[in-house]
Each structure stands twice: as C-alpha cells, then as structure tokens.
C-alpha cells in the first residue's frame, strides 16, 4: 500500500465540558491511501461529519493528530490550513454548497484564484475539471440554473480542480435521485481510480459499495472496518 494521503491517529473530539460534555469522536485511527475510496457509515450523531470536518481542517480535534500529505494539521496556522484546503483537499457536501452568486466555472476556479493563479490558468484548469465531470458545455451557468446532479458535479469538479488528491464527500448523494446519485458516485470513483483519495460519508450501504473500504462509526468510535477484498466482506463483488 502506498503512503497514506490522510492519517488520523487517536483523534477525539469533545464538545462542551463537565456534565454537558458530548463526545463526538473518540480515539479514531484511520488512514486513507492514494487511489482508495473509504466509506464512513453510521447513524445520525455517530460523528461522521465531525470526522470529515476534522480531516479537512474545518474543525480541530480535542486530542490526536491529523496528517494530510505529510502535514500535521495541528502545526498549521489558520492561514496554512486554508492553504491546505486550497491545494490538497476538496469538500463535496450534501447540499452542494456552491456559491450562488458565482457561475459554475467561477465556483470551480475559486480555490485556484484564492491561491494566486492567474485568471487564464485558473479558467483553463476549471474548464478541464468541468469537462471531466461532463459539464464542459455550461461553464457560465449559475447554480440556480443547474439541476441538483449538475450542481453536485460542479462541486466535485471544484473539489478536484488543480492538483488536489483528497476528496472529502459528506453524503454527496443525499439530495439527489437514485440515478443522478449513482452518476455522482461513479464520477467520484473515477477520480479515485485516477489517483485521488476520498472519504465518502453515507447512510446507505448501496453507496458504500462503491468504496474500497467501509468504516462504521457508532457513538464516535470505529466499530467495524471492512475491506472490499476481504474474504468476509459482504461488499465483495457488489460494486455497481
């Protein structure tokens, strides 16, 4: 196995203190390698989204270490964390979270422009990313002019534009119909197969079937971890 792009070691996250303390994550150890799609499953409140936010530097763990492409996130300043999100990882959300006032192309190029790439370079990279998700013909469309599936494809293009290799997807199909959801997952799979790494947070086992590995969370702890190629895996041979 290649060196992990993402590594979480003993990550815990607690909200509040004393009697009102809530433990969202507890002692999470997780590695995601290049070319690997890891599905994280669990009931509501099990800590899935918190895990994703911590992995992306949007939240900080109470204890433990998060390493992205060799960088200890705890060592990074807020500006450095922002730079990490511009250069190394991308988020895909259930509600798409495209900026409504920017066109599809402008949404995709935003991380590059924030990172200082010139307009022409950023637009070329953005068009390539949009083309890779099948939206090369509609760069000037605003989010409200796109269907849900198209918006999510724009979000995936934004997550992978440039040289980023870690995709953190938080229920990306939650707001989509089945067919569109499958298209999005296929796209995600394609990007991973091309060399990226991804975490897919999902409720549905059917979606988890796209993953190489499934991690189950309950009450903030990893209670199960199954590899596709493991003999006991229920997912073996089930990829759609």
């Amino acid at each position, binding site marked *: 196995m290649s*060196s992990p792009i993402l590594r979480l070691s003993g990550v815990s996250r607690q909200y509040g203190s004393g009697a009102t303390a809530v433990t969202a994550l507890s002692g999470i150890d997780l590695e995601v390698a290049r070319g690997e799609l890891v599905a994280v499953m669990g009931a509501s409140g099990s800590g899935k*989204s918190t895990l994703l*936010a911590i992995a*992306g530097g*949007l*939240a900080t763990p109470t204890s433990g270490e998060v*390493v*992205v*492409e*060799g*960088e*200890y996130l705890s*060592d*990074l*300043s*807020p*500006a*450095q964390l*922002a*730079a*990490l*999100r*511009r*250069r*190394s990882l*991308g*988020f895909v*959300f259930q*509600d798409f*979270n*495209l*900026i*409504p*006032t*920017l066109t599809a192309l*402008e949404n995709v*190029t*935003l*991380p*590059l*422009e*924030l*990172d*200082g*790439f*010139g*307009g022409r*370079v*950023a637009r*070329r*990279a953005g068009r*390539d*990313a949009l083309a890779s998700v099948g939206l090369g013909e509609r760069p000037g469309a605003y989010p409200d002019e796109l269907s849900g599936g198209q918006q999510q494809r724009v979000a995936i293009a*934004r997550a992978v*534009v*440039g*040289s980023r*290799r870690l995709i953190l997807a938080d229920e990306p199909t939650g707001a989509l119909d089945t067919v569109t959801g499958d298209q999005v997952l296929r796209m995600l799979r394609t990007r991973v197969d*091309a*060399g990226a790494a991804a975490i897919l947070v999902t409720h549905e086992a059917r979606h988890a079937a796209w993953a190489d590995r499934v991690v189950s969370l309950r009450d903030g702890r990893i209670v199960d971890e199954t590899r596709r190629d493991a003999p006991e895996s229920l997912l073996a041979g089930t990829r759609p």
Partner: protein
Amino acid sequence: MTPARRSRGAGPVRRGGDPARDGTKPSRGGTRAGERRGGWPALRAGARLAWRSVVRSRGSSTLVALLVALPVAGLTGAAVFWETHRATPEQAATLELGSAQSWVSTGPPGLQQAVDDPRFSLGYRNGPPEEPVEPPTGLPAMVPATAVPLRIAETGLGIETPSGRGDVMATIGAAWDPLLEGRYVPIDGTAPAAADEAMVSPGLLERLDARVGDTVTLSGSGETFTITGTMRRADQQPSQETLFLPGTGAAEYSGPLSRWYFADWQPTYAQLRELTDEGYVSYARDLAIHPPPDAVVSGSDALALWNVLVIGAVTGVFSGYLVVLLAGAALAVSARRQQRALAVAASVGAARRDVFRVVLLQGAFLGAVGAAAGIAVGAAGAAITNALTDRGAVDTFWGNWGYRIPVALVAAIAAFALLIGTLAAIAPARSATRGDPLGALRGARRPAKLDVRRPVWGLALLLCGAGLAVAGGLTIAALGRQEPSEGIEPLRVAALWTLVLGPVVFQVGVILGGHWIFVVLSRLVGRAGHGARLASRDAAASPSRVVPAFAAIAATVFAASFVLSVIALQAASSARMYSYSAPAQSIVVSFAVPDGSERPELTRAARELLADAEPAPAATALVRSAWTPPLDPETGRSLDPDASRFGVAQQPDPLHCPVCDAWFNALNGQIVVVAPEDIEAAAGVSLGADALRAYRDGAAVASIGYVHDGDVTVTQWRAGDLDGQAMGGLYDGDEGPDPTREIALSAIDVDRRMWWAAAISPETADALGIVTTPSSLVARYETLPPQAELDRLAAEADRSHGDDPAATGGIYLHVERGPDTGDPWLAAILAVAAVLVVGASAVSLGLSRFERRADDATLAAVGGGRMLRRGVNAWQALLVAGVGTVVGTVAGQIPVWGFSQAVSYYDLRDTPWPWLAALALALPAAIAVISWLVPPRHPDITRRTAIA
C-alpha cells in the same frame, strides 16, 4: 510510516506550475503556506464575490448605499452651493470695479489696507497719529492728469412716497456708465441724459407706485427727477429700494461711500502704500487678483474655506459615525445571510483574510455607490437650490456666480464615503471570519452569546466617560470660586476638555456595553408578556443589528439633549437680561417732548391712534415717568442744580446685577407712575385685589432685582451732585455721590423682570414729591396685530411729526414682543433629532423584521396571532429607541451641568424638561405605536427554517 513532523509555520508547500498537473509529491522549495503566487487573483476573486453579493442582496445593499448617500448628498450640495456663491478673484474684482481698473476713496491717513479688501485694515502702519488728521477731499496727486475719474457715492436720502416720506439708499453719479457694468446692472429703460433724470431699482419703483416716465421727489430739497429706467447694484436684489441720481444737485457726492473709478489707471503696490499714507484707500484690479508676495491681504477667502472645512468636518464626522453604525448593522445582517457562501469559500481554501476582505469590499463598493449617488443628488440639489434662490444678487445668498463644482472638496467627500462604507463593514467582516464554517455549511443559525469582556469594558467606559464629564464640571466649579490666575488656567482648559472628552468616551462605552444592556433588559422585561419576552430576547441575541442602532440613537439624542438644554438655558438667561420697553406682546406709543413739558395733545393723539388699531387692544395704560431736570446743552450741567432726581436702588444679586456695589446702581432703576386702574395692563400681569389695594396705599410694583427684605428703595438725588459723573462702567461705591434721601416702599414682588424698576401710583408719587410727565401709552394684546397693521400704525405715528421732530416732538410707535424664547430653535432641534431617531429605528426595526421572518413563521405555526407579532414589533421599537433616547438624554445633561458650572448665567432650573421628556419618552413611545400599527408580514410557514 510516520512522516517527519515539521515545526509550526513551515506549513505545507505548494507545487509550482500547472494547477491541473497531478503531481505526485510536493516540491519542498515552493511557496510557503499562506503565501500565494500573487495577491491580485485572490483580490479579484474576492472582489467578484463581494460585488455579486452586493448585487444579490439588493435590499440591504440599497439601504447601506442610501445611508452613505444621505450625508454625501448633503455635504456635496452644501459644498457646491458654497462654491457657487464664492466669487473668484476676477469675479470679485468685477463686482468692485465693473470694467474699471481701480477705484480710490478717502480714509484715515496711515492705515494699512488689504489689497483685496480695502475695508480690511491692519491698523496704522506707524502707529496712530498724535493729532487728529483730516482725510483729504480731492483726488490724490499721483493720479495722472490723463486718468479721467468717474465719481460714485452711496448715501441715504429721504424721498416722498405715496404714504408720506421714506428713507432710501441713493447712489449718486453715473452708475449706469458702461464702465461700471458688472458692478451695476441696468434692467429696463434708458440711462438719464439730463440732470433732472434718475433711475430707480424695481423695488423702489414698486414702493413709489410709479412707472418709467413718472417722477421721484427728494423730501429735503424738493428736487424732482424723471425716472428713465430701472437698475440695481449687482449684489443687491431688484426688490431693494435704491435711487440712482446723476451727480448734480443738493445730494451731490455726500455720504461715506464716495469713490473715484478709473478706466485706465491703477496704482502699483508701492503707490498704494503712498496712497494710504496720504489718507486714501484703493482697490486695484491687478493687486486684488494677483497680490504681491509682501502685500497685506484680508485672508477672508482662506478664513471662509477654513470655516467651511471645520463645519463640514464636524458634520461629516457626526453623520459618518451614525452611518457607520447603521450601515454596519445592515451589513451585519447581509453578512449573516452570506455566511454559508463565506463558509463554502473557507472550505475551498479562503483564509480568514480572504473572508474579511470579501465583506470589507462589499462595504467599500457600497460606499462607492453611495458616493456616486450622493454626489449626483447633492450636485443636482445644489443646482435646483441655486435656481430657486437666484434673485440676481451675486455675492449674497440670493445670487450665485455660476454653477461650479469644488472638485477637491467633492473628491474628499467621495473618499469620506468610501471610508465610512469600509468602516461600516469592519465589524461584520470581523464577525464573518469568526463564524463556525462547519455550522454555516450545515445551515445552522445560532444566537449570539454575551461576551463577558465587553460588558466590563463597556461599563468601565460608560462610567469613565460620565466620570470625566462630572470631574470636569466639578473642577470648573471649583475654579470658578477662585480668582483667575495664570497658574490655574491650564487646569480650566483641561477641565473643559474633559467635559468634551467624557461624552465621547461614554459613546464608546455605549457601543461596547450595548449588548450587555440588552441582555439585562431581556431579563427585566421578559416577564411582561410574550411580546416583550420575544422582542427583548431577539434584541439580546442580535447585537450586531440592535447595538449600532441603539448607539446611533443614543449619540443623536445625546447631541440633541445637550443642544436643547444649552439653547434653553441661553434663552432663559437672555430673557432674564432682556430690557423690556413694555410688557411683552404690547404696542408702545411713546411721547417725545424736547422740553419735558406736559403735552396733552400727544396723549390724545396716541389714544386716537390706538383706538383706530385693528384689532383693538385688550387694555391700555398711560405711563408717566419722573421728570428729569434739564441740562445746559453747552456745559452739560444741570440748569437747576438743586432740582431732584429719583431712582430705584438695585439689590445685590449676581444673577441679575453683576455690579451692585456702586452709587450708580442706586440711581439707575427707572421709576414709573401708573394709575391703579391701569397698573395690570402696564405690568402685563394680574396682581389681585390685595396687591391692588396695597398699590393704592403706597406700595410699589417692583421688578426682580429691586426687592430687598420686602421693600423697594427709592433714592432721591440732588441734580447738581450728579453733574460730571460718568455713567456706565465700573464704579467704586465710595467715590460716587450719595443720595439725599432713601425711601423704603413696601414691594409688590411679581417675581419677574419688569420693564421698570418700580411702579407707583400717582398719589404715592405726589407724596414723595416726584414730578412726572406722560411718557407713553401702552396697549396690551394677547396676540399682536399683523405686521401690515403695525406698519400702518407706525406710518400714522410718523405723520404726527412736524417738520422738525427734534424741536417739536411727537409720538413714536414701537412693538414689544418680549425676549426670544428659543422655542422655534428647540422645535427645530427636536424635529431633526426625531427624524434621525426615527431613521435609525426604522433601519434597525426593518432589519429585525427581515431577520425574524423565520421566527415569525414559527410563531404563526404554533398559533401566535397578529396581535402577538404586533406586540413583538412594538416592544422591540420601544426597547431599541427607548433605551437609546433615555441613555442619550441623560448623558447629554452631564456636560450641560458641567458647562453650567463654567457659565455663571446658566441656571439649571431653566432646563427644558418638557422638551427633554418629549425627546426621551414621547418619541420612542410614538415609534413603538407606529411600529405596532405597521402590520407584520404574512408569515411564510412553509419556509424550511420555520419548521426545521
């Protein structure tokens, strides 16, 4: 494998080259994290996001731009109007000279004059002359013989009018000469061609009820002139009454303003100095337009510019402060609506500074939009105002020099707009960077928490500000009891500064402690029902929306409270010091009798005049005054030194009598004699039966300041003892003459300032041996007749004068309206404050209604009716506006108290409590009622936020 841990700050490295390249390993020599290839692309992306957000949030963007545009429009309009009314040096020279090159006039020899304004003098160049020097009468010798002067004089003349005789301004000389075109403006007709022809201004033509071709007659000499046309001076309105006569006849070149205009000659600066030494002043075109470096200039232009800048800066700072607060609230609401977009930007790598910049740029953009709109409106408004006020009188309010935009000032105003727009966005931008991006991405909406640091700082600053003002006032009060000396003056200055600084600190405390105040209020009023609870908790949970409006209202009301009180105190002080000539709201017909003799026909004429008045007076009173022994006109001494003079002694009272230890004060009180049946009309007060009985029995109706221990002291003097005594100024009581008799009369104290010191009945006067003559007939009115009727009565009174009023005497009419109460000013200030408070409240309450839509929907979903939602709106109005007005009003009284310690004639009992109550209580109550009346929006209970 565990990666080698890097020290903090080294950060992730970026890859160079093509962003689309799927690099396998970071190159360690790249740009450090947080550093970028260049700032421009990020700035451009931020600017794009900011502008699109501005466009998308039309409501709040319009509000912010409007808030910025309002002061910008006002300042721009004022600047353009001022610039339009300011003459350039060339225009000023034309107004002075027409097309002439110079004028020369006479003046005190040796005075230094300013080259651009001969009326402005720096005093004598070599000190004042020891002996009075008569100014020259002829042309200066240095004027070449070839220079032909055109002489013009301006003076006053009497003319015959349809209603009698009138005084008008007259210009003597050929003012219609083309040489003076620009100083004088021909309007109609032709220039006089003969010595018996004249021109008049349109206003005089109207007064004469004449037309071109009619005549005008001088009342003194009887000379008659045929009117050939109308004209005016360029800086006078056509309605002003001026007679333009040729320079011949009795009125030739009399009067103080006599000038020689030269078409082809003007002095050099050296010659000008010679002229001033000889007793001339001169205005020379070249010297005025291009003053030599060593020339004396008036500096009036620089002073005017400085005044404009100071007034503009003060207005700008205050209005800018209000706009920053209110626009900041609107931007905060707008930024909260964008928190999800900003969180998305953060999730794709926008650093805090990027997010900060996006919101800040929105403020800057809206500042720019507000600047553009405000400048356009202000410039247009100035043009409209110019058109409405243009009556042709250049160099005055009623005329302008042509539309001009002061580019530098307007550029400064635009920069000011950009600045306040940006400043307004700072707090929302800072708040946006502190948000929880994860929560925002999930669509969470959480109430603000009380930051415990701010109440401490806010309360500390509130107390500190109030304390500074109080300390300043106490210090001034303490210094006021000491003799001024050089040693303590810096302390006095410092104390005055603390009086100014204290309220500023207080305002900062209001901003920082505002959130805490609303949290406390929410606990206090939360039990007053659902409406109060919901409104107060929403206010406490939305400090970025509520506190700025509260602070803006508090600042506005603070200023209004302060100014209202100072004006009221000043007006009351002026009223105390006011010298009445009769009771307020009365007409006085006074009798001028040169020899002091009894003239019954004057009294009869006065009664007939008032009997003819429409409406008739409520009552009249004949007033007699103590006879004053006549003086020898040559020696100034009493013709009969043993004759008696009577006065009333003023009592020691610092508030009413600053200098009361002098003989003079024992004499100067005026004593009048009024019949008991007339005394109430003469006094302007109702005295009551007991007082009238006492009056008949010998008591005196006394003015405040003349009563001591229930008595009035009438003083009798020998006229000869007063000869040669200087009247007025400071006196040493030991050096003056003594009265021959002091008579104590029982005082009827009406506790107000009267127009006399003491009034006594004729019987009392006889008993005291006071000889009296009728001095006036007073007519009391509840409401004075209209001005036209007053003018008619005055003209009737004037007709009673003989050919030589100084010798024959007559009746004169004047109106006593009483002192200015200051009420119009108080009303105007209250109105301005009300507009600002209502505006600030509207902004806050409008934003509140907008932000509470989801809560309204929830409220409706759980059964809350319209009355409840109206109640919420009213309570919120009451809280935001009421707390602001109460805090502002109370705070405004602190410096008033301080200044009252510094100014001896300010009496805090004159504080305008009803006006302050209107400001502090009635105004927010009215706003709350209006807010209750404005129907709440129809709740959209299908909104996901409402039912989530």
